């Protein structure tokens, strides 16, 4: 719902309040940030404390390409929302699908990395503290990417049958806020796991 504006009967100023979708999403982002912070703290706290097993430096490979995919999907979803606000539904749909593709690529990259870590290096969630904290943090993020992709697919599906128009642009902006949050979290996770942690 976009901001309501109604004339204030007894004064000259108008009465406008923020959009409840955006406020709610901001609240959700704050709450989720707290959850991620706790997982990041656990990861940082346990760096170097594993009693056995492979260390980050031994097994981690920096996922530059998939990171670029995810971060550029923020741009595409932002442009998609902008196009929809201006009523250019065709471009919106294309950018929406591109976002889904980029996000899906990122998830594929994560899956590939996990496959390598498990089958080539024997690193699982129960191997050592690094395994536990790594899979939990990256997995929690991947879960949130998946949830965002599900929502984007639903939006794309409705878009393909012509049900998404300018009136929905506020809601799509709210969804894109969530997607930006997921990307911002990846920036933090990437820095902590692949830069600081090695």
């Amino acid at each position, binding site marked *: 719902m976009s901001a309501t504006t*109604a004339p*204030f009967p007894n004064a000259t100023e108008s*009465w406008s309040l923020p959009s*409840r979708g955006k*406020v709610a999403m901001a609240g959700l982002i704050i709450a989720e940030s707290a*959850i991620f912070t*706790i997982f990041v703290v656990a990861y940082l706290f346990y760096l170097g404390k594993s009693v056995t097993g492979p260390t980050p430096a031994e097994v981690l490979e920096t996922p530059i390409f998939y990171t670029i995919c995810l971060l550029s999907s923020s741009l595409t979803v932002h442009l998609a929302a902008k196009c929809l606000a201006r009523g250019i539904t065709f471009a919106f749909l294309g950018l929406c699908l591109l976002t889904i593709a980029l996000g899906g690529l990122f998830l594929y990259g994560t899956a590939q990395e996990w496959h390598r870590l498990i089958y080539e290096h024997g690193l699982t969630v129960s191997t050592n503290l690094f395994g536990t904290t790594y899979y*939990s943090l990256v997995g929690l993020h991947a879960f949130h990417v998946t949830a965002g992709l599900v929502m984007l697919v639903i939006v794309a599906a409705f878009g393909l049958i012509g049900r998404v128009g300018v009136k929905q642009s506020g809601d799509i902006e709210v969804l894109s806020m969530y997607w930006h949050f997921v990307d911002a979290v990846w920036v933090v996770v990437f820095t902590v796991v692949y830069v600081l942690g090695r």
Partner: protein
Amino acid sequence: MSSNVITVPVGQTDARPWVDELHQWLTTVDHKRLGILYILSSLLFLAVGGVEALIIRIQLMHSHNNFVSPEVFNRMFTMHGTTMIFFVAMPVLFGFANYLVPLMIGARDMAFPRLNAFSFWLSFLGGLLLYFSFLGGSGLYGAGSAPDVGWWSYAPLGARAFSPGHSSDYWTLALLVSGFGSIGTAINIIATILCLRCPGMKISRMPLLVWMNLVMAGMVLLAITPLSAAQIMLLIDRYLGGHFFDTQAGGSAVLWMHFFWIFGHPEVYVLIIPCFAFMSEIIPVFSRKPIFGYPVMVAATVCIAFVSMSVWAHHMFTIGMNSYANSFFTLTTMAVGVPTGIKIFNWIGTMWGGRIQFKIPMLFSIGFLFQFLIAGLTGIMMACSPFDWQLSLSYFVVAHFHYVIVGGILFALFAAFYYWYPKMTGRMLSERLGKWHFWLFLIGFHLTFDVMHIPGILGMPRRIYTYEPGRGWDTLNLIITIGAFIQAIAILVFVANLIVSYFKGVRAGSDPWDAWTLEWSTSSPPPAYNFATVPTVASRRPLWDEKHLEDPDSQYE
């Protein structure tokens, strides 16, 4: 909502078959009904948690008692704490927030009515899940047992190695589920307050109850989530072989403590701030004066919210942090007492020079002021780490926090019940039963919790199912138990009052207390749409302005 005016259809009948009525209640998205559902569910869990408390008190009545086995006792104190915090205190406060916030800001409902319903049912079903553990918990002691790890489930006691079976998983999952419900409600409250205020109600004109629920909701977002995160980690440890809190693999038991108390301490402020809200509405009305220092009350509340995020490790003074860490948390804990104390002064300042009406809500409010002050003072005592090294983990702490929760929160809640029950039901609660309730509960409360400080000072630790004779704790525990039963009787009187008054109470009318906030401008109970016309306000006390046209508040703000 695009229209400001709702036309009322004529000829609507009230009578409905009971199945229909039940269906309406189960599928409602109306904030008032959800508020009442929250309150009713919390009263149900209050009864259960209360019985658990009485079982604890009977067992501790004298040394070497055999009323229950150690296993049952350990489940009782675990379930009592978990139930009271998560399934009584939080829901009842969310219930009052749900009911009152839209009415007080002149809105027709919460920002997200369906999310509201979803959050309530998550919360309620979380409670049922917790209690299903009695049937499905298969722990070490045979089929079916409730969690017995304490309401903090400290690591590594909560790990698979020390808590086999599923009993502690019920604790984890029930709180995860209801935690998500709490986050949903908090988001809803914030969106409602920021986005649905009626014209003229600037942020600086909101009733203090609305302000404080806004702060509380913000804190919920930051406080509940660390617990959810820690519980996910615990589940990973227990089911996926993780090592987050596995000390044998280099994991840290202290990390769990930090995560838990980063939730646990702000949580108690989440519980008390809505009670400050009740006091800030009730005390002015029964003193016939506006709240003393509205801006400072807001600032103090926000200040408490921030500072309270930095005090958590005062629950961990005994775990072996170094002297600098202990000193830091001593400082922040003492510091948070300053804005809290300021609020007490402001309430007293409100009463000063007023014309006090000693109706039941005011009696409970005065009890709150006195008891919350004492609880705060014992808190400051324990903020001093060297004192805490003796008092922590003893009955002194148990006395302190029950002083806040029962003497503070529950008294404020009773005041809120007597004050807003007329609005919710259209009938006044009985003054006579209210006086019995108040005096019985006051006597029982003080008998129990004043005395309870002493065994703590004499060395009695908490969470023990029995104790040795000759320590000097026997008589004191007996007195404590007697007080508990007196409180139980008082609660029965209260419940009787709630029920009897519903059918036979004096009709309330829309504004029985001659109050000043918007909820009193509509009928009792309000219609489903709250206000036929969305109000516009020009001051913090819109009804004062209407009743005192020659001297409105808007001149002074």
